[in-house]
């Protein structure tokens, strides 16, 4: 061992490599990969065929962003790409993280790895980095594949603006899935049984995708101002509902992707008539779009970091003594 610093980095890269190898060899990942791959390809195919047959309307401000439309359009038979990712992405994250620590603990391999000369946090960091790089390469490949196929099909390349937006969209998707990954890693540190951690993570996912909208509907009914309510009251109600909705991570993600993929959107909340007056129906520059959904994106990143910090804290204090 020539240089301890160097050998530490080497050991960390070995751990990350082991994680990646484990993921891509595991059946659960292969099955989910197949599901995500097939649904995404199908939704992209329907989007492409829908776009091929309908010429953009002359007053459509998004007409110049053909490559962005691929990810948001659908012909009605299938949800669009970004909705699919919003729905299945969490499952992928949970699948990669729910047994990260407790499976190794129960298999007694945790003690063996930690009795090697590596820092204790390397283990957890490698779990995170390994899964994250699998997710990132998966989505980068999927989006590049789509853009490439579309370029071949239509015969012109994407513009710089589109490339930048797609890059940020990929980044946002990875962050969103990383949030679910970290949440499930947190549960895998806290719960001893893999089944418990998987079920808890899936329960939270189900709660936010199925039950949370139902609860919001009930709340909305009770809060709904009557038809003769003042404009201020209606605005207040709308803002309150939007705030409640944004407690769901999927809402944060869909706000962010909508802003990135539909450059003509100017606000995610309600707008006054006078705010719209005199506005030219043109797309926003990238930076302006980002500013609209800035708080949502920051919230998503913050949630991801909080989950990771919590799992880090619990992992460092965990007794590694075997059951």
């Amino acid at each position: 061992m020539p240089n301890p610093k160097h050998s530490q980095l080497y050991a960390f890269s070995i751990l990350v490599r082991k994680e990646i190898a484990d993921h891509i060899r595991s059946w659960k990942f292969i099955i989910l990969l197949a599901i995500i791959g097939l649904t995404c390809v199908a939704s992209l195919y329907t989007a492409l065929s829908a776009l091929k047959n309908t010429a953009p309307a002359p007053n459509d401000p998004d007409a110049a962003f053909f490559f962005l439309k691929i990810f948001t359009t659908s012909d009605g038979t299938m949800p669009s790409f970004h909705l699919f990712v919003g729905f299945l992405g969490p499952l992928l994250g949970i699948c990669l993280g729910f047994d990260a620590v407790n499976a190794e603990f129960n298999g007694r391999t945790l003690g063996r790895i930690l009795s090697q000369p590596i820092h204790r946090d390397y283990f957890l960091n490698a779990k995170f980095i390994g899964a994250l790089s699998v997710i990132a390469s998966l989505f980068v490949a999927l989006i590049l594949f789509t853009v490439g196929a579309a370029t071949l099909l239509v015969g012109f390349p994407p513009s710089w603006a589109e490339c930048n937006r797609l890059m940020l969209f990929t980044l946002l998707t990875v962050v969103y899935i990383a949030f679910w990954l970290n949440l499930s890693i947190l549960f895998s540190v806290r719960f001893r049984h893999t089944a418990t951690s998987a079920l808890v993570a899936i329960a939270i996912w189900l709660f936010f995708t199925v039950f949370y909208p139902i609860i919001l509907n009930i709340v909305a009914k009770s809060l709904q101002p009557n038809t003769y309510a003042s404009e201020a009251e209606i605005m207040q109600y709308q803002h309150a509902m939007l705030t409640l909705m944004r407690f769901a991570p999927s809402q944060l993600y869909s706000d962010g992707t909508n802003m990135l993929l539909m450059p003509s959107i100017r606000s995610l909340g309600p707008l006054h008539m006078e705010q719209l007056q005199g506005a030219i129906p043109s797309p926003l520059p990238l930076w302006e779009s980002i500013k609209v959904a800035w708080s949502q994106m920051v919230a998503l990143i913050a949630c991801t970091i909080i989950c990771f910090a919590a799992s880090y804290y619990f992992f460092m204090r965990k007794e590694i003594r075997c059951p």
Partner: protein
Amino acid sequence: MEGDKMTEPIIRVRQLTKKYGDFTAVNDLNLEIAQGEVFGLLGPNGAGKSTTILMLLGLSEPTAGEITVCGIDPVRSPLAVKRLVGYLPDNIGFYEHWTALENLLLTAQLNGLSRTAGRKRAFALLAKVGLQDVAEKKVGKFSRGMRQRLGLADSLIKEPKVLILDEPTLGLDPMGVKDFTALILQLSREEKLTVLLSSHQLYQVQQICDRVGLFIQGKLVADGPIQDLAARLFQDEKRYIQLQVDPADTERTHQILTRMEAIDTVEQNGDRFQIHTDKTPVQQLLKLLVEQAINIVQLQQRSYGIEDIYTHYFEGGTRHA
């Protein structure tokens, strides 16, 4: 205690205490292990052996006390200690769907060996523990004994100075235990290792330990070579000679024994005699009996040994002396 051997201890533990809430797992432990020694940490389940081992490795923090392993404090620099100490936990875990070689290679690489160097070393060690034929087989298909052998190879891959084995013989059949302890002894002599092994199976490890420490309820009751240990623990107890003769000779034997002055008391039970004496050597008694043409079935000098340690501390669990 053994002054000259203790000049340069490789493991030194002073007033080590570990508490889990109200429960004291290790209580004021003092221990010194010299270089090249095979030390057995013996004690019943739950005596705090594994906890002590985890603290030696820096995997668990002591509540109080000092540890040095090879002159390094594992609390302050666990990495340096882990580089020098090979650890085989009880029931070691391997990645079941990986081959034996891949499992060893991971450990080798985590210790900073390159892929090629790691492979070479892994193959060499697999040959040493007798698993060279199954190097490419998945560990999931291994038997208990094979896993322990693989575990030994795994803990030796970093070329450690100290080898710590936690219940290495647990779950092995008698033949397996014999092979495995022989292997440990052979490897430790070849690689000039200091070995610390913990066990609750006194009989199985006594043959290979130079010295043992008896660990009961978090406290080290005694330490030293195992025969001395018994003598020291039971020094107040009297020795006795057990004699069994041909049933036809019992009457005569009784007469001879009662005539001998050196004998304190004789207890008779059919053809068996229990002779309490501090002075008469067993040879003298034997000579006398043979001269009188008594048919001896069995003659045994009973001294307190490990069996008595075992019954006193492991089975009964009562504190003695």
